[in-house]
């Protein structure tokens, strides 16, 4: 009898200790980047924190710093213990180290934000920035096409683009922008320039002033902190600029036409939501586009109030056609 009682007791203990595994396992998420303090990175952190509040996930943020020598060890330190279900990674300078470590730990699920790489074991959160840029290009083209009858617009029939570095994702912005302008205003030409750096606002300002000087009246900033100079230049020259990644209307009130938002928060939140709700995130590419709210063009109220109604109507049609897939936009390779 005694033995039986003991066995029973042991059984109860075993069942009790096994219980927590029946309940939803806590999801452990890490995120690593050198850009969590600025623009797009802030948007990602917002999404992660929202997921933490809503789903009670365990969240670890790691700053890579700027020493290329460290990246591999940093990834390996995160991946080695296998304690993280998902590791979010953002930043193109990390790609080499990431792919090397991912090959060493093929079971560790890395989520690369903002691009698609060769590795088959990773998850890619890709943004249809060409769709948002298409809308931005269409808007800029139509406004420029109005000519001097619209406030601050000259006879130049040109719009500008300041890119940060010449990397694939920035090329994709430019491609969408050019196609959008051509679609909505075939007479307007696009002048594009790359700063070669994401960290030089003075250079951004200088390049934007050059573009304004050459007859462009609207300049699209896709240059991170370099782009802050572009926004400032639009106020100095009293022309227009288009913001990127986050809402930039406040950076030069009256001179910002709109911002093309890349919703990093929407993307990371959606991915974590799937994981938490039991839809295990598997390797492959997930594109966040206009239809799913991953990208959107947010008009600035002050300027939007002055826009002719037909431009607003046409923009809405274009928005709908792009979201429905009626307008096909080529992605930059």
């Amino acid at each position, binding site marked *: 009898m005694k033995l039986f009682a003991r066995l029973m007791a042991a059984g109860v203990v075993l069942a009790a200790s096994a219980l927590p595994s029946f309940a939803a396992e806590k999801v452990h998420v890490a995120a690593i980047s050198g850009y969590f303090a600025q623009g797009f990175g802030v948007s990602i952190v917002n999404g992660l924190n929202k997921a933490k509040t809503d789903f009670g996930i365990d969240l670890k943020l790691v*700053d890579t710093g*700027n*020493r290329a020598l460290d990246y591999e*060890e940093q990834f390996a*330190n995160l991946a080695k213990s296998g304690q993280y279900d998902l590791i979010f990674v953002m930043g193109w*300078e990390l790609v080499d180290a990431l792919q090397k470590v991912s090959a060493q730990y093929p079971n560790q699920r890395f989520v690369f934000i903002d691009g698609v790489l060769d590795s088959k074991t990773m998850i890619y959160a890709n943004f249809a920035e060409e769709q948002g840029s298409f809308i931005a290009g269409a808007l800029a083209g139509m406004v420029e096409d109005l000519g001097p009858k619209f406030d601050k617009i000259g006879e130049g029939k040109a719009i500008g683009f300041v890119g940060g*570095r*010449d*990397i694939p994702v920035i090329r994709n912005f430019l491609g969408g922008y050019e196609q959008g302008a051509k679609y909505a205003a075939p007479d307007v030409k696009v002048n594009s320039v790359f700063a070669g750096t994401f960290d030089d606002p003075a250079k951004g300002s200088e390049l934007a002033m050059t573009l304004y000087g050459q007859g462009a009246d609207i300049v699209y900033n896709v240059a991170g902190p370099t782009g802050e100079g572009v926004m400032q230049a639009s106020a100095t020259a009293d022309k227009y600029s288009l913001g990127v990644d986050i809402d930039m209307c406040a950076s030069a009130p009256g001179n910002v036409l709109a911002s093309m938002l890349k919703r990093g928060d929407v993307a990371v939140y959606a991915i974590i939501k799937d994981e938490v709700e039991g839809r295990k995130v598997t390797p492959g590419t997930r594109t966040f586009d206009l239809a799913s709210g991953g990208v959107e063009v947010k008009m600035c109220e002050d300027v939007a109030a002055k826009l002719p109604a037909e431009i607003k109507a046409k923009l809405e049609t274009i928005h709908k056609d792009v979201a429905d897939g009626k307008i096909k936009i080529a992605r930059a390779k």
Partner: protein
Amino acid sequence: MKTLPLPSGLLRTLAGQALAFVIALALGAVIILMIDESPVAVFMTLMRGAFGDAEKIAGTLLQTTPILICGIAACIGLRGGMFNVGIEGQLFLGGFAAAWVGFAFSLPPVLHVLVAMLLAVVAGAAWVAIPAFFRVRFGTNEVVSTILANYIATLLTSYFTIFLFKRPGGWSETPPILESAYLPELFSFSRLNIGLLIGIALAIATALFFRWTAKGYAVTMVGSAPKFAEYGGINVRKVGFGVLLVSGAVGGLAGGVETLGVHHRFMEGFAPGFGFDGVIAALLANGSPIGTIFTALFFGALRAGSLLLEVDTTASREIITVIQALIILAVSADLLMRRRGDRTGERRWKF
């Protein structure tokens, strides 16, 4: 009452170092407590990150390598009375030069490495030649001119990388170097390569040079007592120029080791601050090449350990940097005290 025998110089130094370390740990512990972490756990993680297993030790040595070679470069300058603060720039140009040979030419394996390294050395020496010339010809302060040369070097290599040699697509970096230009790795599980051995050999060779050769003695004399050296028939300007040139060459070599051994390409901003770390390591070692091996190892362990610290504890990168700085500060303060008491001879660079 019996008086205790005075401890010998070495013992006193070690006791002082231990005391400094304890002070640093205590200060660090206060900061760690302020962010609600356990100081013991943080320091254990730091140690585990630096020496936890074979891979971690290799990681520490990997971090040590560039600091060591840059440190030797600084030592050579300091001994000759030249404060080469431009090692950062020499490192960048050397790194770029080696990578360029690595991807632009196809050569047989061993020769490829040698040619790439040679060009790295030449690039480093050439970069310091301008400040060196102004130093010996016009007496321009080399601290100022070499610091300024750093900015030019960093931006110049950025320009080369972005506008002339950027690989299509991807980040701002050159195409990868050919495998024939790779420095051999020491273990299969780490990127640690023979660069470390080059650094140690260089440290020993430099120490032997200063200890046993007439030329080495002449350089030391020019550094500590230039008037006396001149009186002894040494061409002070020529020696000074040579010292800076060799120092710059070693700085270039450090860059070559990094690109050929670790990154296998040149990236814009590939090794920020490594040159300055080397200068600090050399100063902590009081200009001794053998001492620099240990100070560089100390820095390398801090760097490698902090990488795990960031992942395994809630300490942020900023907190880790503060703790590192505290440890360095405490250790260096003690060394400066010792220098005042024990060292004779006048250095031109006084702080």
